[in-house]
């Protein structure tokens, strides 16, 4: 039987908190700071790792949305090419979050190249609007993802992760991922 990843993370956190923490001398400040940050990181990963694919799919969709706005303004051939590849990846059957992240990063680079190439003031203005509008969902997602880190002055203003991932989970998660998530949720309840 393959060990459950959530369980492995949970016991590692428990060991660090319950046993290792008390054995680190209080005057070893560097070790204590590193241990505290490591525990917080593992707890964060435990909360988020099962949503990695949904996160990657949603981020790619958001970036495609921004790129489509840009393409309508600029008609840039290079951007169109990268956009086509990203659309195929988003509609494809991959269940590899890293692969989707690579498509997203390439698309973001292509958008930035368009920003750098634009010189006409009217076009620049439209590009600016497209990026500002197109960034909103992406930043909401990033903030919702990072909310447990505790850096938001007013957490109530940040949409829930379910809200910002919702569309992507419905549209993009391959069945195997959805089944796995459902199984994990049911095993916890």
């Amino acid at each position, binding site marked *: 039987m393959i060990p459950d990843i959530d369980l492995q993370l949970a016991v590692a956190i428990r060991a660090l908190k319950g046993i290792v923490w008390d054995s680190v001398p209080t*005057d*070893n*400040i*560097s070790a204590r*700071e*590193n241990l*505290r*940050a*490591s525990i*917080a*990181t593992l707890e964060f990963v435990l909360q988020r790792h099962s949503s990695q694919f949904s996160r990657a799919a949603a981020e790619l969709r958001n970036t495609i949305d*921004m790129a489509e706005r840009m393409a309508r303004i600029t008609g840039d051939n290079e951007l169109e090419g990268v956009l086509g590849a990203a659309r195929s990846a988003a509609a494809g059957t991959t269940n590899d979050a890293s692969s989707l992240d*690579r498509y997203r*990063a*390439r698309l*973001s*680079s*292509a*958008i*930035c*190249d368009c*920003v*750098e190439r634009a010189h006409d003031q009217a076009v*620049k203005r439209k*590009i*600016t*609007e497209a*990026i*500002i509008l197109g*960034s*909103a969902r992406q*930043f*909401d997602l*990033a*903030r919702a*993802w*990072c909310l447990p*880190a*505790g*850096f*938001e*002055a*007013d*957490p109530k203003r940040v949409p829930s992760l379910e809200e910002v991932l919702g569309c992507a989970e419905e549209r993009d998660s391959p069945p195997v991922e959805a089944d796995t998530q459902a199984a994990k949720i049911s095993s916890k309840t």
Partner: protein
Amino acid sequence: MNSIAKDVRRDPSDAFIAAVRKKYPVEPEVDHVLTRKMTHRHKPGYTAISLDTLRTGLEALIRSEVGSHFVLDNLRWLPGGFSKIQVAFDLETDGETHKAPERTPMVLRMEPAEAIVQTSRRREFEILKLVSGVVPAAPVYWLDHDGKYLPYPALVYGFAPGVSMPLGGAQEIKGGRTVFGPGLRAALANQFVAHLAAIHTIPAARVESLRYFQPAKVGSNESVIRQVNWWRRVWEEDRPEDVPLVNLAAQWLVENAPPLDRPSVVHGDFRVGNFLFTESNAQITAWLDWELSVIGDRHQDLTWAAMPLMRRLAEDDRTELAGGLIPIEEFYRRYEEASGLVVDPKRLLYFRVFNDFQVVVHMLATAWRVASLGKTDKDAAVAWISMIGNVATASLRDSLEKVL
């Protein structure tokens, strides 16, 4: 430069370094520090440094300055701070040496292999000397600007007593509420405003004496653009991937840089958390972290101190307090009274974009890069705080939306 097929920033070529330097001209000392960062990037990450190693380096540095009539005692790591390594110690002299009192508590402040903000110890040393007597600041003693004696560039300054947050209150900040009670708030806010005004009104002749800072001209926006270039260059050197909004922000900042109406010493990180105070009498004992100081526009500090990331709510859960200390409008009004300088709303808007841009670069580019290359003794914490970058990016988007 936007290609991500290979991470060209991980082990940058001479051509890459030269191209970035040419595209984004900055002050000579900033250029020196950033170029050194890039040429050293391929070197190994941080490896644990013992207190004994630091003692040996400190002894060599101090010996080169004051001779050998001293003993170092009570070396210990200091907590906090994501960007530098800090060790406290006591310097005991035998009375033969007159460059320091007989037992002086001191702090070694040293860079890691690469820091979340890569800055100049020479500039920090010089600005600390300048502000001595203007605002509470630790006396600064010795400088090892290129790591001749210590593993990395470092300086030594006096140990200041006090805390940066009320003891026992640090956890509450997570909820967005101020950790300063009304009484403490009032006392600290008075000093907060007065000290900022004092820094910004240091006489021009003294400011012009700084050797490692490029002067800023009245009526020109060159100094502001140099600063935009600084962080745009760092974005180019450190980022893991592109973020279109950052390119847009950099373009807007260059195209809309306001001409300087008055050159001031700008602290660069003037905020709650960067001063120490004694709880018994609510006195600020030292302003810390001068590494981002520049000669520039006072509005940079004014917006930094009040930026959304630094705001906290008063007990009514409505009133936003700059740094959790003082309502924002009151902060600006009292600053005008204390400094005799005008607070210009247009410049506030400009520097809000600038400061958001800067935080995004620190967190989404440099923090990520430093942690991924294992360059500090606090990589787990550095990777953790890089998540602030997402709050800052959203704020940058909002700021740009307001000005466009």
